[in-house]
Each structure stands twice: as C-alpha cells, then as structure tokens.
C-alpha cells in the first residue's frame, strides 16, 4: 500500500497544518528522524506517524555570526527528543549565546518549522 506522498512531503505538509509528527517503526519500535522510506535500524517499511512529546535536550549548539545589517547573530542547534531521535533546530525566546548544551527545551511550530524554547 503506497502512501499518498513521500515521507518528506508528509512531514512538511503536517507542519504547515500545525502538526509535528515523526515516524516510529512498527517492526523494531524505534523512533525515526528525519522521515524515511525504510527504517534505518531494521530495514522495515512499516513506519507509522506519531506525535512526539515535544520534550527535548540540547545536544550541541552554535551561534552563527552575522552582521547586524544582515539580521544579526542567530542560534543553530541539535536537539535530542525524548523519543531518542536528534534533529537540527533553533532555540527561540532567548539570546543565541545563552543556549547551553544539556538545556531542557520544548518544541513549537513557527513559520512551518519546528523550533524550541527553554522548558
């Protein structure tokens, strides 16, 4: 049974509709991110969409330095979700230099993207 679209489009369309969904493998029970056609852990194609808890921890972080005229400095980070997957994102609501590794964060959707704020 083929899905109506590829997993990447499904993920991005869901975000546009305000839903943050990741995959979970029905065969090996592991969560999967980014969205795949096959489970990268066991090879199964039985990947189901689930809503993550939204809880995460900053795994690493950087401040991209940019001239104020071009919009100023901004944060880019990697967040480990409670479900055991990692994603690139950014931490909103605090200064980019205040983001710390190990910081507990919560997901939200802004402009069709998943970003995080301190928990």
């Amino acid at each position: 049974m083929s899905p109506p679209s590829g997993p990447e489009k499904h993920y991005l369309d869901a975000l546009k509709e305000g839903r943050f969904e990741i995959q979970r493998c029905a065969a090996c029970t592991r969560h999967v991110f980014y969205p795949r056609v096959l489970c990268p852990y066991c090879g199964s194609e039985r990947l189901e969409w689930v809503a993550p808890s939204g809880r995460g921890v900053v795994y690493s972080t950087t401040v991209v330095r940019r001239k104020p005229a071009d919009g100023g400095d901004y944060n880019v980070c990697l967040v480990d979700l409670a479900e055991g997957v990692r994603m690139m994102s950014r931490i909103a609501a605090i200064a980019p230099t205040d983001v710390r590794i190990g910081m507990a964060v919560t997901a939200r959707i802004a402009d069709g993207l998943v970003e995080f704020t301190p928990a």
Partner: protein
Amino acid sequence: MRGSVAIAGVGLAGCGEAPGWTEMEIAVAAAKNALDDAGLTARDVDGVVIASTNIFMSGLALAEHLGVRPKFTESTMIGGSSFVEHLIPASLALNAGLCDTVLVAYGSNQRTGVGRGEAGRYKMALDPQAFEHPYKPFNPPSSYAMAAARHMHQYGTTREQLAEIAVAARKWAQLNPEAFSREPLTVEDVLRSRMVSDPLTVRDCCLVTDGGGAYVLTHAERVKDFPKPPAYLLGVGAAHWHRQISSMPDLTVTAATESGRRAFDMAGLGPEDVDVLELYDAFTINTLLFLEDLGFCRKGEGGAFVSGGRIAPGGKLPVNTNGGGLSCVHPGMYGIFLIIEAVRQLRGEGGARQVKDAAVALAHGNGGVLSSQITAILGTKDTL
C-alpha cells in the same frame, strides 16, 4: 592490496591564487606536473580519476581535455576525502589488469573564480536538505562548530587547545615556501579573530584558496622504471556513517575509528609506526578528532595531546607538515594535497620541513561534515 601499487609522481598547480584559470585547466596543469614528476606524458595514461563539486561528468571532462581515451574512469564524489578514497578503486582496477597508469587529479578556482554565490543557490535548490537548510547553518563551519562545542562540553577541551592546532599548522607553513599563509600566528591571535560560528573563529577555519593537485598511481613492479622513489600503498580503509551533521550518531567520534583500523590492519602497522601524519584539517577540531580516532591518543585527550607544540615543528609528532588546509592550501576539497605531501615526505623532498627518515606516512581524508573518513598509509621501499 598491500604493496601492490605505488605513487610514481605528484604535482601541484595554481595553489593560492590562479585568476583567469578554470577548474579543469588547474587540474590539467597539476596533472602535467605529476606526469613530469613520474617521467610520463598524458599518452601513457589509461585510467583517469577526478572529483569535482561543480563539473558535471568530470571524468569525461578530464579525459577529453587531456586527449586520453581511458580504459578506466572513476569520479566518486564523497567530499574532500574523495582523492584519498580514489586509491581504492584505482588499486582494484590496476590489480585486476584493467589499466596500467592511473592519473588522479583535482583543480579548483574557489578563491578567484566568479559566480560562487549563484552556484551555491542553484545547488541548494537542487538538493534542498529539508531538515537542515531551513535553520540556516553556515556550513560547513556550523556543523564542525557543533562538534567542537560538544567535545568541549564532554571532555573539557578548550578554545586555547584548538588554537594550538592552528598555530602548529602555521609554524609548518612558515617552513614551506609554497604555503599560502606564512605570517606569524599566536594562540591569542586565533582566539581574538572574528568569530564565525561559535566556538570557531576564522583562524580555526581552513583557507579558501585556488589550487590543484595530481598523482600518478601504477603497479608496484613498474615503479623501478621511474625517475623518483615511489611511495607504496601499504593500507587503506574507508568508512562513513552520515552525510548531514544532524545524522551523526556522536559528534565526538568519527568514522575514522573504523577507516583507521582497516588501514592499519591492511598495512600490518599501528599508530606507533607512523613517522608523519597528514590529517584533513578543514577546521582545528578535525585534527584533534582524527588524532583521537586514529589511535594516536585516547578519546577526550586530544586537547592535552596537541598542547605544548607536540604536533608543531620540533614536536614529538609531525602533523600536517605542509601547513595543512589551515595555512597551506584549501581549494574547496583538500584530499589530494594530503597524498602529495605524504609522498614528498617519504621521498625526502620536504626541504626545511622535512621529517627526518620518514618511512611511513599516514594521510587521512575527511569529507562533508565529518562524514566520509578515508585513511591511507604509504611507505618507502623499506617498509614493504
């Protein structure tokens, strides 16, 4: 594979700035120098190998420009490590009897070439990387910066220790008349330089230069016919676990742990046998991670290991003796220059930077964002 093939010639061209030269012209100029070095001409070449970030069907373009009708063509593109990885298919082709003389070449006008911004936008449109690009990482620096930040967090590595790596590279470059950046550099200079993507400053990042390089690989039994001492391939290993940094399992451990072990196993050698190391230093954190992952020090101890000038001229372990990507040359992809410097060291052609009695050299290539890891071990005739 051990000892079955050897590098008979190496050459550089256009390193630093080569305004008005196309990428393929620089590659072919380097190829000419490598062929001259081996006492050969393009007429002798029956295998062509190249990788390019820009040239479509680059293997065809290289052969066409040279006037070669190759029996073997290879243009695997896995980032800057490609030219180290190319040793594997080229050796297999030689050993299978498909060809006799393989030319591996690279050229880039990344510094002076025009249209870079436009090309970058096209590439992003063709390969959107939907799970990273929207967050605007300034790549590659931001990916390496997050590896550095994690290593600092986990092991207490300091920015000063990373800066020591840039200073060591600069000291080697000062001994190399062909290096691009040779002015004095201190740890303080590195720390006070413009921050690019925390914790990496512009001096933690490689140069952006033009330049090309080439090497000629042939059967070991043929190299006695060539004018200069050959460098024999003793071992090579490849590994990759991710493309994007967000898919890297542990930002403090690279696939060099596997590629290094494979190369050492094939060579029948260990880190203690290596006289000179050429490590792909696109960023200071690279050198530190590869010293750990290749077994020259323990995981987490890289910061202390590089301190006190250990990898600088006069230190215990000679690393990146040409000045590396940080201070010698870095035209987009650096891999071929690792091989060239290793061969020069094994031949005793290093001049003021020559490592005394260098018999075993390790060249470690890195591609993408700590993604593809390829380790090659080369040696003189005595190491066979």
